[in-house]
């Protein structure tokens, strides 16, 4: 299908880092089944570096591809760098997403941020909540 770029199809059909991390240091879940996409990111963190990352996704092809690409982009990176990852960078790395699918890359960015936030919460590390996503601020699924 010419609906998606070859990169999207590759990451959709051969997703990297699928699965679960037992005893993850941070877990972030965004989206809901009602609106059609749920993304869950698991992080293993050692000395502020993401040593391992896995994802689970319920959603369309571009949601799965976005999760896969995003996990590749943050694996082995310091937390500070992972927090800089934007949805645009994910979409660009996939050679673009159709306009109505850009939301999938937003979910990927937000799932990572939520997982890091969860890690901070678990470890009593202070942060500025304004820098983290809030599902209710997004109007995507009109909920």
């Amino acid at each position, binding site marked *: *299908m010419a609906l998606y770029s070859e990169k999207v199809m590759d990451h959709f059909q051969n997703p990297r880092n699928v699965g679960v991390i037992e005893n993850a240091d941070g877990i972030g879940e965004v989206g809901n089944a009602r609106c059609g996409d749920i993304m869950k990111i698991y992080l293993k963190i050692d000395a502020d570096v993401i040593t391992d990352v896995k994802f689970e996704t319920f959603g369309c092809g571009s949601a799965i591809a976005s999760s896969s690409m995003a996990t590749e982009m943050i694996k082995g990176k310091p937390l500070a760098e992972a927090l800089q990852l934007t949805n645009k960078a994910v979409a660009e790395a996939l050679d673009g997403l159709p306009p109505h699918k850009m939301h999938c890359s937003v979910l990927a960015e937000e799932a990572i941020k939520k997982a890091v936030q969860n890690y901070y919460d678990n470890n009593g590390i202070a942060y500025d909540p304004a820098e983290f996503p809030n599902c209710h601020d997004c109007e*995507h699924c009109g909920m």
Partner: protein
Amino acid sequence: MNIYVDNAATTRMSDAAVAAMMPYMQSVYGNPSSLHTAGQEAAEALVTAREEMAALLGCEPREIIFTSGGSEADNQAIVSAARIGQRKGKKHIISSAFEHHAVLHTLKKLEKEGFEVTLLEVGSVGTVTAAQVAEAIREDTCLVTIMYANNEIGSVMPIAEIGAVCREKGVLFHTDAVQAAGHLAIDVKAQNIDMLSLSAHKFHGPKGVGALYVRKGILLTNLIEGGAQERGKRAGTENVPAIVGMAAAFKEACGLREQNAAYLTALRDKLIAGLSAIPHSVLNGDPENRLPGNVHFCFEGIEGESLLLLLDAKGICASSGSACTSGSLEPSHVLLAIGRPHEIAHGSLRLSLCPENTEEQVDYMLKAIPEVVAYLRGMSPVWRDMVEGRKEFIIK
């Protein structure tokens, strides 16, 4: 394997249809309105096509209007009935919640003009009964429009019974028979149908051509103004090759109808039985009164677009009511109408068969589909939550 099982979306043209059309592109290419021989030959082809369509529907040739397809026929039928009603001060229309958008959006437009529309509920099986229609008819009802068969979930409505109720109450009855024509028996007189829409590309004819049957005496309102084609009710030079192709395809489909239905029903029921074995799956639509080639399922814990793309990679061209494919977030209005929650409606799959499909293809699909469903469930956090007991299954 290359398997096309999206025949409810459109079909491959039959050899008979293609062969019938060919002469009308380069040999007999005149304008049917022209007085010269070339034109009159084309006009004769139209006469023959109209006679053939009429004979197969059980009406008179003059009761057939050729259109650009099912959508136009639906629009014109509904608008015409509304205008007739309006002149008598009747501005109530009855339809169902799971009609095609060609019907629903036309009704929406009329609502803005002050018409009142009652959309009958279709229940969990997805059907409309004649009793529901009888109960909903009021003094000011000018039209009942109920589809013959649903394009997504394949339910077949009791059209003759609904027709009888409407006739008895003196209310016009239109049916969108786009999914039924060539697949189910049609006799507009016996079934008391006043108006009927059909579309050639759903029965192996060309795209962009259809027909509207209108019972004698019902005044049509033009959607397209211009020349005097189609008794002045539909302007524009007729698409002669397409109309001839439609008639050829319809003749063939009606001739083979019972034979095809028996063949397709067997393949359909094998698919339904096989896919029902997938845990937490559910068949949508009426299991008994069902289009011979329609299989429609929801699978819990997965999303339809990813399912379709993976099936496509395995050579299976199918469809889903998934919101994602159309770019809107709302899942199919048909699945919502039969009461499937959003979560479930996202994970749907429609396989619509035609006589070119084989048992070997069915066996291949029965292997491929459960594998793909299991694979996607394996990466679905929703599925994990349900399997590990944090969330309840919706489909038991």
